[in-house]
């Protein structure tokens, strides 16, 4: 990919664009694609600790975009308990003193981009929170590394590298042209990431329910 980026910039020997610059561009490209199309998903475990309400996502990993599902495991309620996701406002509506509630965790609520709260919080340590999260890809380290993204998105990475090179040259028109090509790939990646949701959706016309049935004549 580095060779293709340099070829696209007409700098095959990498005089104007050193390898490190191209590598950073490819890493940025993978991040941008992962942000737009949520395809990279991971699961991490955090031990449930007595009395702990707020958990930091920095403790989970440094590649967390955002968690989308948390399962409480190993507590007395059930071996696996998918926790319901609420906002802080909704949590307050259920219980104004939810901070004090003790028991097996049922709900979780994002507090900040880097932390979330659970409610109730356990009175005793034990069990784990399995956190499913959308992730940024790991940066590539070696020349023979392959991107974590699907094969169809690899072309987009090359295009992004060319876009960054053209931007560095202040070549406005070529830069914008390559950017529009990259966007087209990114949109396709977004569509691909939603395929499961589209296929599982129940689609039907709703009934023309007007409330009261029309009385018979």
């Amino acid at each position, binding site marked *: 990919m580095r060779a293709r980026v340099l070829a696209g910039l007409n700098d095959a020997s990498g005089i104007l664009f050193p390898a490190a*610059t191209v590598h*950073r561009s490819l890493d*940025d490209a993978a*991040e941008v694609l992962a*942000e737009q199309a949520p395809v990279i998903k991971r699961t991490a475990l955090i031990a449930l*600790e*007595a*009395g*702990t*309400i*707020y958990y930091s996502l920095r403790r989970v990993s*440094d*590649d*967390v*975009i*955002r*968690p*989308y599902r948390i399962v409480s495991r190993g507590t007395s309620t059930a071996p696996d308990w998918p926790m319901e*996701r*609420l*906002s*802080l406002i*909704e949590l*307050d509506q259920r219980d*104004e*003193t939810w*901070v*004090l509630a003790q028991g097996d965790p049922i709900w979780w*609520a*994002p*507090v*900040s*981009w*880097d*932390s*979330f709260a659970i409610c109730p*919080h356990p*009175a*005793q*340590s034990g069990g784990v929170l399995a956190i499913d999260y959308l992730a*940024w890809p790991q940066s590539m380290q070696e020349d023979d590394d392959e991107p974590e993204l699907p094969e169809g998105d690899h072309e987009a990475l090359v295009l992004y590298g060319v876009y*960054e090179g053209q*931007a*560095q*040259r*202040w070549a*406005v028109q070529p*830069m*914008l042209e390559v*950017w529009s090509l990259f966007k087209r790939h990114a949109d396709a990646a977004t569509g691909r990431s939603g395929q499961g949701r589209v296929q599982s959706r129940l689609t039907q016309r709703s009934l023309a*329910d007007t*409330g009261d049935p029309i009385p018979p004549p």
Partner: protein
Amino acid sequence: MTVGEELDRIQDRLNDRTAAIWSREELAQWWNDSYRDLCTVAAVVVRLRCLDLPGRHSHALTFDWEATESTGTVWAPMLQGAAGSRRFTSSWESEHLERVTPSQGFAGLTYEWERAHLESTDRRYEFALPKNHERLKRVAWNNRKLFPVSVRELDASSTSWQRRIGLPRWWTTGTGRVRSLEVYQIEATYQQGYAQNSLLGLPRALQGARSYGILCDGPQATNLYAYTGRGDVQAVVREGAVFAPITCYTQSWESAYGRAPRYNFTINLTMNEPRLRHTVVFPWEMGAVGGPVVPDDGDQADQEDSFIAIRSNAPVALNGLARLLTHESASLRAGTQVWEQEFLNGASSFSTGAVVGAFTWENRYGAAAFSIPLGTVRGAESPDRQYLPVESDATLGVFQGRVSDWRSSDEAISVHEVVLPDQQLVEADTPAHLPRQLLKYVRYAVLARCFGRDGEGHNTILADHYNRRASQGALLFKNLGLAATSDRRYQRNSGILERQQMPRVRLPSTFERVW
């Protein structure tokens, strides 16, 4: 990724490594501006803060212009009148100046904590928030949510809501200064946190009514030597030390045939060395090889089973960490076991004895385990509640440094607030208010400012392009904080009202209760 590294990347992108068009200082300023903008727009950097009850301010002002000269939180307790030229402590002073017969006024106060000593005042019940405060997300008193209300709603509820005493139920941004909130009803029971002045160093000891553990995750420390009493300290670290063995030996197997306390020349000469350096046969030889000078005792030639005194003219340096093995009684006599100390102190009941080890590794052979706490407090834990590290206004988001505040949310005000970076980051700093992967959007915002600046390098198209990319980053960052609702699907309802239960009657807290 430091700010300096980010600036390098920006200069790479600008093709301006020599800063011929855009100076490094200019880029650093724009970087800080863009960083703060991103945090402001997204509003997803939320932190928990506990406030003193009643509120505590760094300074009390007489005139508003004084606020510009103040660092820290400010409060203006004085009443204003006479076309802004006068400040009053009590409202009757205003009447007096206007040549009106003064009426009964309320007591004035200078700081909010004085409420604990007052019956009633006409001042707002105000809490100040620090400089990096952006907006409030949730306010609680005693861990119970307080409801946000407007002043108009409060006016509709009561004519004297500003003075009503009771349990707090509502909060409002009220009629006070920026970065402040007011809480009603007024609960003025003293609940202050502990603030450690930076000039006073680190907290060395914490104590209170609650039980908690202190985390002190320094390096795994081990002691280099152990000692049994005050005399030993002198023997190993002080010049002119005196050591009085009964038996001397040079080989370890000989130790079984002597009487304690024994003296091993080889070990004592090399106590700070990992390897054997010298072996001596007679004590006087020790001085010749660099050890403590020992007078030759001609009266006892073989010195076996004899009492000798070794006097050291050179300090026997035992640098490092030592462990005191004994427990000293009130009479300064020491015992190895705790029960010995108790016995010497005249106790009637005694602790159970245990195997005492001098070093940590002896735990493997039955000695009681011990750890050596080194360094500062890194955390506290309890099975009953969470001790959460929170930022103080002097830090930049990373939980490093020392404990500067120690507060509780019990019977006090706690707020979830959106915060901003409150200081300019310099090149060596690492931004901590957003994930490192989003730093590229700060770069785009800086690039937009670079190309948008008039003069050399101005390019409207590039400025517009980078502006749009920075906006996408802000939107993405905002969405990170909306994880609760990000994939919810909303739809219009049918418009048919379902039968609902009437809301419960809520009586004022002053309503008479019968249990």
